[in-house]
């Protein structure tokens, strides 16, 4: 019964999306005061509620493990803990697509409910675009991947969930990325709306900015969490493999970062109009492409789950429809959008343009590298593209961008010279140079980690320079946001460079009682014991580890065997100190009474994820600052209107 309610709500929501689309289009033709135009906003709001009901129904059937629903029977199991039953609701294709439309419909409801700054025509066009995009996803769900499909004969027991995915990471990671993708769909709708009505104004950028910021924060968190998750779950010791699925989340982030900065220029300086629209389209294309790559399984990935090539072609069709349509509209209308304000090269706008161009170049590099295997496969040549390509080629554009990022926030809007900031520039340059020389002489490290470490230090200092000479109490929150986000980039960069420069790895075969050394750690294998869990058995290696002759502690990495479905996983153990992590993986026996261990000492590796969190925190602060300013402006406006009516009444 509950499942049928969920399905019915989904159909009704799809019908409302049609109404929303029609209302918006008719409003554009017949004026915004008609009866139909008045329906657009309520349609969007009601739709949000209906889809939320539908998603609630899905959560419910998973919570009670209703095995007559096909999706539950395929993906759940009565023995699973409740939290994993719930997260299993979106740990599969149908459920994750329902989550996607849920977030999308709620976002649509929110803009329909509260966004009143833009001209009503632009809003109608935006909501129509949003309805159109939503409609495609409803069609996808209802026609090809109905999450509420019943089985003719209820299953006796569920087929379980991939044990790699039975992790709290799954409960959080995909929804976070979806929030990001969907935020970009809202930005896309705004861009289309503004393009249709040719109202590319600072007000438009200000309306769009919170959505970009929100999407960007979620993408940052999603990538950070996903990277850490893969790092400890896969047991390979790496945090980024340039895997297609990882690239699929990185590409929207790069586009969103560029969009965020160009929208700032548009909001405060009324420049970069066309470019911002273009980036809005590109950012959403990248989220769609990401979904396509992940869902279709067209590229092999270590993280892939719920893969289905046929559904891939549906997403490809949607991708072509939306992006092709938007690009066509762009080509037709871009010429009609008037020029924005001018600025000189040495200005904050100039620096932001460089940042945008570099980010787009990195995006192009990642995109080409990700799609290249598909391209060559058409000629029956099988290749894989990995770090030897991505790292150096990406770095060619990343380092100039970081250099500009260090300097850009010090410049003034519109027109500035570098003469005003000689001291600061000299400081940054000196830090960079001395870092380069010092690290090269001390450690003789490879070029990329060397550049990374020196740049990270220079950037960490440079990110705080914009605060110089200002009263810290009076610095606006959004400026703090920028400072912290830029500082976060420096911190993450430091972690990555340190990990690649100073990591030590040790493979050892130890008898019980044997010891080995990795970096400053000494590790002793005490015993290897069999252990059993609710749905697995494991070999557990009990070992004591001591840092630099200090107090020893005990860890027990495991090699686990699951039985529903049968699969083996490694449960690595991480020992975190302020200055890095010890990473221990238990292997099998080596046929002579010894056991294989794989150990890494990774100095400062945790900085990568601290950096990611700082970047996200910066985004949150910027968002809070912007929204607060907006609320204040609304309040003042309302008060002004009240005063005026009072005055009129008195008169």
């Amino acid at each position: 019964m509950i499942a049928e309610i969920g399905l019915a709500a989904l159909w009704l929501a799809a019908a409302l999306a049609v109404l929303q689309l029609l209302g918006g289009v008719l409003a554009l033709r017949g004026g915004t005061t008609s009866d139909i135009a008045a329906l657009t906003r309520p349609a969007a709001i009601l739709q949000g509620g209906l889809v939320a009901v539908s998603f609630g129904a899905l959560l419910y059937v998973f919570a009670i493990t209703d095995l007559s629903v096909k999706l539950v029977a395929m993906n759940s199991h009565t023995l699973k803990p409740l939290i994993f039953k719930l997260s299993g609701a979106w740990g599969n294709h149908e459920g994750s697509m329902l989550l996607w439309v849920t977030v999308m419909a709620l976002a649509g409801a929110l803009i329909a409910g509260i966004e009143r700054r833009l001209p009503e025509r632009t809003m109608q066009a935006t909501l129509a675009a949003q309805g159109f995009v939503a409609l495609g996803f409803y069609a996808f769900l209802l026609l090809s991947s109905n999450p509420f499909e019943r089985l003719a004969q209820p299953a006796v027991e569920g087929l379980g969930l991939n044990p790699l995915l039975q992790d709290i990471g799954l409960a959080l990671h995909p929804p976070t990325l979806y929030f990001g993708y969907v935020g970009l769909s809202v930005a896309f709708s705004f861009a289309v709306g503004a393009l249709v009505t040719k109202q590319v104004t600072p007000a438009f950028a200000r309306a769009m900015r919170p959505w970009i910021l929100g999407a960007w924060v979620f993408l940052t968190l999603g990538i950070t969490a996903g990277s850490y998750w893969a790092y400890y779950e896969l047991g390979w010791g790496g945090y980024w493999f340039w895997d297609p699925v990882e690239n699929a989340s990185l590409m929207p982030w790069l586009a969103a970062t560029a969009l965020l900065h160009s929208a700032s220029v548009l909001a405060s300086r009324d420049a970069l109009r066309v470019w911002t629209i273009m980036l809005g389209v590109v950012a959403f294309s990248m989220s769609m492409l990401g979904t396509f790559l992940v869902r279709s399984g067209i590229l092999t990935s270590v993280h892939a789950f719920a893969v289905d090539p046929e559904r891939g072609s549906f997403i490809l069709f949607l991708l072509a429809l939306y992006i092709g349509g938007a690009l066509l509209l762009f080509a037709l209308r871009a010429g009609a959008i008037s020029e924005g304000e001018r600025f000189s090269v040495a200005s904050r706008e100039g620096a932001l343009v460089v940042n945008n161009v570099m980010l787009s170049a990195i995006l192009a590099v990642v995109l080409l590298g990700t799609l290249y295997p598909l391209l060559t496969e058409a000629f029956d040549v099988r290749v894989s593209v990995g770090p030897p390509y991505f790292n150096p080629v990406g770095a060619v554009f990343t380092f100039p961008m970081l250099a500009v990022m260090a300097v850009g926030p010090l410049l003034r809007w519109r027109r500035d010279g570098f003469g005003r900031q000689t001291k600061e520039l000299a400081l940054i340059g000196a830090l960079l140079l001395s870092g380069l020389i010092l690290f090269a002489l001390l450690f003789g490290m490879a070029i990329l980690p060397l550049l990374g470490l020196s740049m990270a230090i220079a950037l960490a200092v440079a990110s705080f320079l914009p605060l110089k000479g200002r009263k810290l109490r009076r610095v606006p929150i959004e400026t703090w946001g920028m400072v912290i986000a830029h500082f976060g980039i420096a911190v993450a960069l430091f972690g990555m460079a340190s990990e690649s420069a100073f990591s030590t790895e040790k493979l050892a075969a130890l008898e019980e009682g044997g010891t080995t050394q990795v970096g400053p750690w000494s590790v002793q294998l005490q015993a290897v014991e069999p252990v059993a869990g609710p749905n697995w058995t494991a070999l557990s290696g009990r070992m004591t580890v001591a840092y630099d002759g200090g107090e020893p502690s005990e860890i027990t990495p495991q090699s686990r065997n699951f039985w529903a479905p049968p699969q083996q996983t490694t449960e690595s153990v991480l020992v975190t100190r302020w200055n890095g992590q010890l990473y221990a993986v238990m292997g099998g026996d080596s046929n002579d009474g010894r056991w294989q261990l794989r150990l890494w000492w990774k100095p400062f590796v945790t900085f990568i994820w601290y950096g990611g969190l700082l970047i996200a925190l910066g985004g949150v602060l910027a968002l809070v600052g912007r929204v607060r300013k907006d609320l204040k402006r609304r309040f003042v406006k309302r008060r002004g209107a009240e005063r005026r009516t009072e005055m009129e009444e008195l008169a």
Partner: protein
Amino acid sequence: MKAKHQRLVLVVLALVALIGAALLAIYALRNQASYFYLPEQMAENPPEVGQAVRLGGMVAPGSLETQADGITVTFTVTGREQSAVPVRYAGILPDLFVEGSGVVAEGRLLADGTFVADNLLAKHDENYVPRELEGMSEHQAAEMAEETTVGLE
């Protein structure tokens, strides 16, 4: 500078950067992409020594040996036509790595003809099969495909 000129300059700048990025990417991809080899292809037309490539085939039954250090293993990867490539790998074997089953080894060829693997991809879970092993039947004799994909469905 007029507004129109400014836009033109920006467009040209962006185009130059993007085309530059694309050209650089294509150049790097030709050199850095790691190509996939079958054992017979590796015998016939070996990649350059030290070039990162992938080798895919079947782990010959009875060839898996653990060296004295307890960590390094050697085995032979065979394909059709009696071609066989000796492989050396130091590390923990992937969970479902067994003799007589398919494997993809990432690594490089040494001058003496040994393939040194940095990473072995075997069956990851019941859904994951290295892509190279997936479509083998199209490219290889059916018998080879059958042997290689035993248990790999």
